[in-house]
C-alpha cells in the first residue's frame, strides 16, 4: 500500500487460538511502516489486544509469523525484542521511585550510571515530570502515572512502542490532553507506535492508520478520514461515528452507482460491498450529510419525512425523523437561524447526495 519498502512490522497469516476451538485471531495480515502510528480499534473480544500481546511476545501465534525489522519474532523472548510497552493499568513498579522505574530498562541493559541518570532526566522532562523523580508511583495522580509509564516505555529508545489502552483509566479531559501529548511525542521522536483502543474518537485523533478489528479479523485498515468517509462494510460504518442504516435490496447496478429498494423507496447509492442485483444491502449514511428541505432537483435522493424528536445539543440539533420505513433516521441540523423553527410532528423533506450513501454488505 505504502510503497515498496519492506514494512517494519509484519503479521503474516497469523492465527491464534487459546482453547483449540475458537480462533481469536483469524488469518491476520498487517504491514506497518517504520514511523507509523497504527491503531487497532475494535470492541472488546475482537482480538486486538491478543495481536498486541503476540507482537510484544507474551502470547505466541498458533500459526503464521510476525516479523520485526525483517527478523522473525516468533521465538524471540519478550525481553530481547526491544519493544517498549505501555500497559492499561500503567504497571509502574510500586516499590521503586519514578526515577528507579525509568532507570530499570537502562540498568538491565547495563548502561553506565551517568548515562542512565541523564536519560532518565531527559525522559522525565519530556513528559513534564522533571521534579517528580523521587516520588513513588502511589503518590502520583493517574495522569502523572500515565506519563511516567509512557516515559518508561520510551526511555530506552525503542523503535517500536506498543500501547494497550493506555488512557482507559483517565477521565475525559485528561484523556484528550494525553492524546495530544502522545501524538506530539510520536511526531517528535518518530518511533513506530501500535496503539490499542476501543475508543473510536481516540483512534481518529491520533492515528496515521486505523485497523478496525471485529471477530478476530481486520475489517478495514485505512487512514482516519477514509475510515469515516468511506467505510468498507456495515460493521465499520456502524462502529466509527454515527450512522443511519437503511436496509434494502439492490435493484440495479450501473458502474460505481446502484439503485436500492428500501421499503418501496428507490434510493441512489454508491455500490461498495453488496453481492449484486437482488442481494440484500445496508445503506450507510452519515447524519450530518443529510439535508432538510433541499432545493428541488439539487439532490438525487429526496424523501418525505416526519419529525419525531428534537434534541438540542448546542452547536446542532439532533433531529430524529421517520422516513423510508425507518423511524430511527437521524439528521444533524446545524444550529443556524434559518432552521431554528422545527417542531415535533412537522412534515419535512430529507435529501442526500449519491456519494454520501454507501451500499454495503447486509
Amino acid at each position, binding site marked *: 500500500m505504502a510503497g515498496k519498502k519492506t514494512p517494519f512490522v509484519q503479521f503474516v497469516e497469523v492465527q491464534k487460538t487459546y482453547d483449540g476451538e475458537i480462533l481469536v485471531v483469524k488469518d491476520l495480515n498487517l504491514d506497518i511502516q517504520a514511523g507509523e502510528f497504527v491503531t487497532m480499534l475494535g470492541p472488546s473480544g475482537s482480538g486486538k489486544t491478543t495481536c498486541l500481546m503476540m507482537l*510484544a*511476545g*507474551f502470547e505466541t501465534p498458533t500459526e503464521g509469523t510476525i516479523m520485526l525489522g525483517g527478523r522473525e519474532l516468533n521465538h524471540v*523472548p*519478550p*525481553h*530481547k*525484542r*526491544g*519493544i*517498549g*510497552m505501555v*500497559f*492499561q*493499568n500503567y*504497571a*509502574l*513498579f*510500586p*516499590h521503586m521511585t519514578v526515577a528507579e522505574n525509568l532507570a*530499570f*530498562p537502562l540498568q*538491565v*541493559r547495563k548502561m553506565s550510571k551517568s548515562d542512565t541518570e541523564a536519560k532518565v532526566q531527559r525522559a522525565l522532562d519530556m513528559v513534564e515530570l522533571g521534579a517528580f523523580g523521587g516520588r513513588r508511583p502511589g503518590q502520583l495522580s493517574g495522569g502523572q502515572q500515565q506519563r511516567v509509564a509512557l516515559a*518508561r*516505555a520510551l526511555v*530506552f529508545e525503542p523503535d517500536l512502542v*506498543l500501547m494497550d489502552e493506555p488512557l482507559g483509566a483517565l477521565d475525559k479531559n485528561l484523556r484528550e490532553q494525553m492524546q495530544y501529548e502522545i501524538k506530539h511525542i510520536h511526531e517528535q521522536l518518530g518511533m513506530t507506535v501500535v496503539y490499542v483502543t476501543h475508543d473510536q474518537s481516540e483512534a481518529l485523533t491520533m492515528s496515521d492508520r486505523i485497523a478496525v478489528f471485529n471477530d478476530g479479523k481486520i475489517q478495514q485498515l485505512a487512514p482516519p478520514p477514509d475510515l469515516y468517509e468511506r467505510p468498507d462494510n456495515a460493521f465499520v460504518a456502524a462502529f466509527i461515528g454515527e450512522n443511519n442504516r437503511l436496509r434494502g435490496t439492490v435493484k440495479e447496478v450501473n458502474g460505481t452507482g446502484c439503485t436500492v429498494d428500501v421499503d418501496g423507496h428507490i434510493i441512489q447509492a454508491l455500490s461498495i460491498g453488496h453481492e449484486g442485483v437482488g442481494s440484500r444491502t445496508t445503506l450507510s449514511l452519515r447524519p450530518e450529510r443529510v439535508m432538510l428541505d433541499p432545493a428541488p432537483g439539487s439532490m438525487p435522493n429526496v424523501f418525505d419525512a416526519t419529525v419525531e424528536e428534537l434534541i438540542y445539543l448546542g452547536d446542532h440539533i439532533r433531529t430524529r425523523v421517520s422516513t423510508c420505513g425507518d423511524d430511527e433516521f437521524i439528521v444533524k441540523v446545524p444550529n443556524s437561524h434559518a432552521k431554528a423553527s422545527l417542531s415535533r410532528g412537522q412534515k419535512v423533506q430529507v435529501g442526500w447526495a449519491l456519494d454520501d450513501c454507501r451500499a454495503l454488505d447486509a
Partner: protein
Amino acid sequence: MAEAVQGSGPSPTAPKQMTMADGTPLKVALARATRRSKIRALLLVAPLLVFILITFIFPIVDMLMRSIDNPEVNEAIPLTVAELDRWDGEGMPPSAVFSAFVQEMGDRSDEQRRNLGRMGARLNYEDGGFRSLVNKSQRAAAKIQDAPLQFALVGFDKGWEDKKTWPTLDTLAETADFADVLPTTAEQLRAWETGSSPFAEKVPGAETFSTILSELATAAGNGSLDRLLPVIKAENKKLATLIEKTGAQAGDIEANPLRYALMGVDKAWGQPDTWKTIKNVSSPVTASYYLNAVDRTYDSDGNIVMQPEWKQIYVHLFMKTIYVSLGVTLACLILAYPISYLLATLPSSKGNLLLILVLLPFWTSLLVRTTSWIVLLQTQGVINDTLVFLGLISDDNRIEMIYNMTGTIIAMTHILLPFMVLPMYSVMKTISPSYMRAARSLGANPLIAFVRVYMPQTVPGIGAGSILVFILAIGYYITPALVGGQDGQLISNFIAYHMQKSLNWGLAAALGTVLLSGVLVLYWLYDRLVGIDNMKLG
C-alpha cells in the same frame, strides 16, 4: 441561618464561632449527634471486649504479676520477717527472730499450716531441702514452745536426752558436792521417780532442764562447777564432758534457748546463710523468678550470680527454641514461596483446588497430624521400612527421625506451613501479572524480572508469614511434647512442666514473660525494618 449571614458580614477579621440555627455551638451539636452512634458501636463490641478482657488481658496481667509476686514467706511468718528486717545480716540473727519464728512455726491452725507449706515450697526454689526443713521444724516448733529450755539443751547436745544421762545424774544428786553446786537440781532429781524398768521415764520434767541450765550457768560463772566435775568424771566420763561443755555455754543457751532448740531440729537453723536466704525471699516482690529464668540466682548475700552448672538449662533452652523457630520459619518460607506463587498464578479453578489442599491440614486435628508423623518417621515406620526395602539403608541402621530434634522440626514445619502460605498467597494474588510483563518488555530476563520486580512486592507477605510462623513456633507445645523426645523439647514444654508438675507458677510466669517480651522485641524490630502497615495477613 440569619446569624451566619450576619456573622460573616460586619466583622470578617474576627472569625465567629460556628453555631447552629438555635445558637448551640457546632462542636457540641456534632458531639450530641454522634454520641448515640458511638454508644451503639460500643455496645456492639462490648461482648468481645469483655471476652478478651477476661480470657486474654486478665490472664496476661495475672501472669506478669505472678512472675514477680512473692507473698509466701511474708504471709506465713510476718513477725519473723519484721524482725529479720531489723537484723543487719552479720553473724546470727537476734533472739527476737527466733522467738517470733518458733511462735509462727508452732501455730498448728489449718490456714497457717497451708501458708507454711507454701513457704516451704517457695524456699525450696532457692535451695532444695528447704521444704523438708520447714516441714520437720514445723512439727518440732509446737513442742519447742512448751519447753523451750529442754529443747535448747537437747538441741545443744543430744546427750541431754540420752537415756543414761538423767538416771546417772539422779544417782549423783545424792552426793554432797552435787547438792552443793546444783542445789535445786539435786532437790528436783531426788523428787523425780525413776526406775530400772525399761518402761520407766528416762528424762525428767521440763522444769528440771531449766533449773539445771540456770544452775550450771551460775556454777560455771563462779567456778564451783570445777569441784563437781571430778565427781561426775568418776561416775561417767562422757557425762562429765557433757556437763563441762554445757556449763561453758550455759549463759548463751539461756539467753537464746530457741536458737539451740531449732539447731536441735536441724543444724541449718544455726547457719546465718539459712536466715539470709529467708530474709532475701521475704520481700513482697522478687526478681528471683526472672533470674532463675535466665539461669541466674541470688547468693546468700543478695548478689546476682550464675546458677550452679547443673541447674543452668533455661538460657540454652531459649537459644534452642529460637534456633528451632528460625529453622522452621526458614523451612516454611522455602517450601511456601513456590506453592504460594503457583496458587496465585494458576487460573482460579485449579488454584482453589490447590488452596483446599493447603487448607486441608487445618481441618484435621493437630494431634492426628502429629501422630501421623510418628507413624511415618519412627524407626519401624513407613519411611524407614521403604528405605530398607529399597536397600538404601540396612536393617540395623534405620534412621532416627523422630523423638529428637529432627522430628520436632519436620512436624512443626508441616503444621505451620499453611500459616506461611496464606499471607504470602494473599499478597501474591494482588500482584498483577502486568508487572512481570512490564519488566520483561523493558528488557529484563525472567530471572531479573522476578528478583527485582516480583520479589520485592512479596516482602509484606514474607514478613507477615515469617513473623506469624516464628511467633507460633517459639511458643509451640504439643508437637515437641509428642515427637520431641529428650532433646526436642522447647521452652514451652518447660513452662508447661512448671505449670503442671512442679507447680512453680512464678517461674513458669517468668519464662512466659521472657518469651512474650522476646516476641514483642521482634515485633518492634519488624515494625522498624519493614513496617507493620506493610503486613498483610489476608
